[in-house]
């Protein structure tokens, strides 16, 4: 009787330990699910912002083509960027892995560059600047470039929160068992380099002229 008591005690401790570990495991599993979902949701926002830009392009190109003298080289550049974006097949609703992400980002950056150059060149066309439809389109484009930047920032924030919890002990054990992998980031340095390049102050006189 007496020598069974320590054994029972050990057993009780073991059960308690397992219980606590189980609860801890469940909470960190649920936490990971929540954070992973936040990343997926934010990725959806990023894709929506890029899609919004893609939807604007046909109208923009149409308006520019109506300008007989408009430089065709930028339009070809935009067409090329478009086809390389279309070649990338992302799994719907899923954050791409690092290689895919880099490819996606490169193609989109090519488009940003082409659009930026096109807008810069359009500054030289007074008829375009006076065209209300084109002005409104270029506002939409500027707004969309801004949305892309902001949603990317938010994506990186969400991915960082998730990645940190995937890698941090002891949740990393749960992440390993549950098959949670760290997400790829946007290369925000490249993105922010590109962003200021796309300056649209269309329709507003330059400051020197105004004063």
């Amino acid at each position, binding site marked *: 009787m007496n020598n069974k008591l320590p054994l029972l005690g050990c057993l009780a401790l073991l059960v308690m330990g397992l219980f606590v570990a189980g609860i801890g495991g469940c909470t960190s599993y649920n936490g990971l699910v929540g954070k992973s979902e936040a990343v997926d949701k934010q990725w959806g926002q990023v894709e929506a912002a890029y899609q919004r830009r893609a939807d604007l392009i046909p109208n923009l190109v149409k308006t520019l083509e109506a300008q007989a003298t408009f430089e065709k080289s930028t339009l070809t550049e935009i067409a090329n960027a478009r086809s390389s974006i279309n070649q990338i097949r992302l799994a719907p609703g899923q954050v791409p892995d690092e290689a895919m992400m880099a490819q996606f980002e490169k193609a989109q950056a090519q488009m940003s560059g082409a659009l930026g150059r096109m807008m810069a060149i359009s500054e030289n066309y007074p008829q375009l600047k006076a065209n*209300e439809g084109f002005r409104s389109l270029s*506002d*939409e484009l*500027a*707004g969309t470039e801004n*949305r892309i930047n902001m949603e990317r920032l938010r994506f990186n924030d969400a991915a960082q929160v998730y990645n940190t919890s995937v890698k941090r002990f002891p949740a990393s054990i749960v992440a390993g068992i549950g098959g949670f992998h760290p997400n790829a980031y946007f290369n925000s340095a490249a993105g922010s380099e590109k962003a200021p390049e796309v300056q649209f102050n269309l329709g507003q006189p330059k400051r020197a002229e105004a004063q």
Partner: protein
Amino acid sequence: MLINPHSFPPHLRPILAVLLACLACLSAALAEPLPPKPDGYLYDPAHWLDPATADSISRQLETNERASSNQILVALIPALPENTALEDFCFRTFQFWAPGQKGKDNGAVLFIFQKDRRARIEVGYGLEPVLPDGLAGSIIREKIAPALKENDPAGAVRAGVSAIIQATRSEYKGTGQTNADNFLQRHPALTAALVGILLLMLAIWSHTGDTVYQRAGRFVFYNIFDLFRLILFALLSGASGGKFKGGGGRSGGGGASGSW
């Protein structure tokens, strides 16, 4: 307890000190010069607008929130902080002020940077359908910039605010209240009931007789009455009247910028 240096072994304390210093430097570097949360609909620290205009703009925007639940703000900022991109500054300020109701994200802020001669309308997610970038851009170009060119900030803000309200007013339905309304303003029935109880108490206890017990009872109840009255007045005072409280709305960077 973790940060108490005495709980650390002495030979580790320098390391702790260095770590804490690094942390302090980091948080100082990350502290961004964002404007403080405004307590009214108009943020005008430099008093660029004359008091009468400022007052009427604030009232117009408050009425707008009561009618539509949209939270539209005006921020007149003397100068953009150095090495800051306009879009980034506006986005982060929007995030911090959080205009718009949670879930509806129906906020918008008209930013005007006096020294930089630039303006931006930052639009919350929920107002993007009715205030698309193209419209925001044309409001800046056609309503705001011309008045600012004439050095008429009051006219610019008035025209800009009216155009934004007109574009957005039918998107959401208001509740007749603002987020800054206090407890009693939000519960008018409760307020009426409290006032009723107060008057009833007064009526009953001023008509009791004159025995010792009745006088003692009256004394006690007068004091209770007084306490009640004080609480009610405290709740009623600080009635919102032009105060603003962000509802937690978000922006995705929508809107347009321009200069004059």
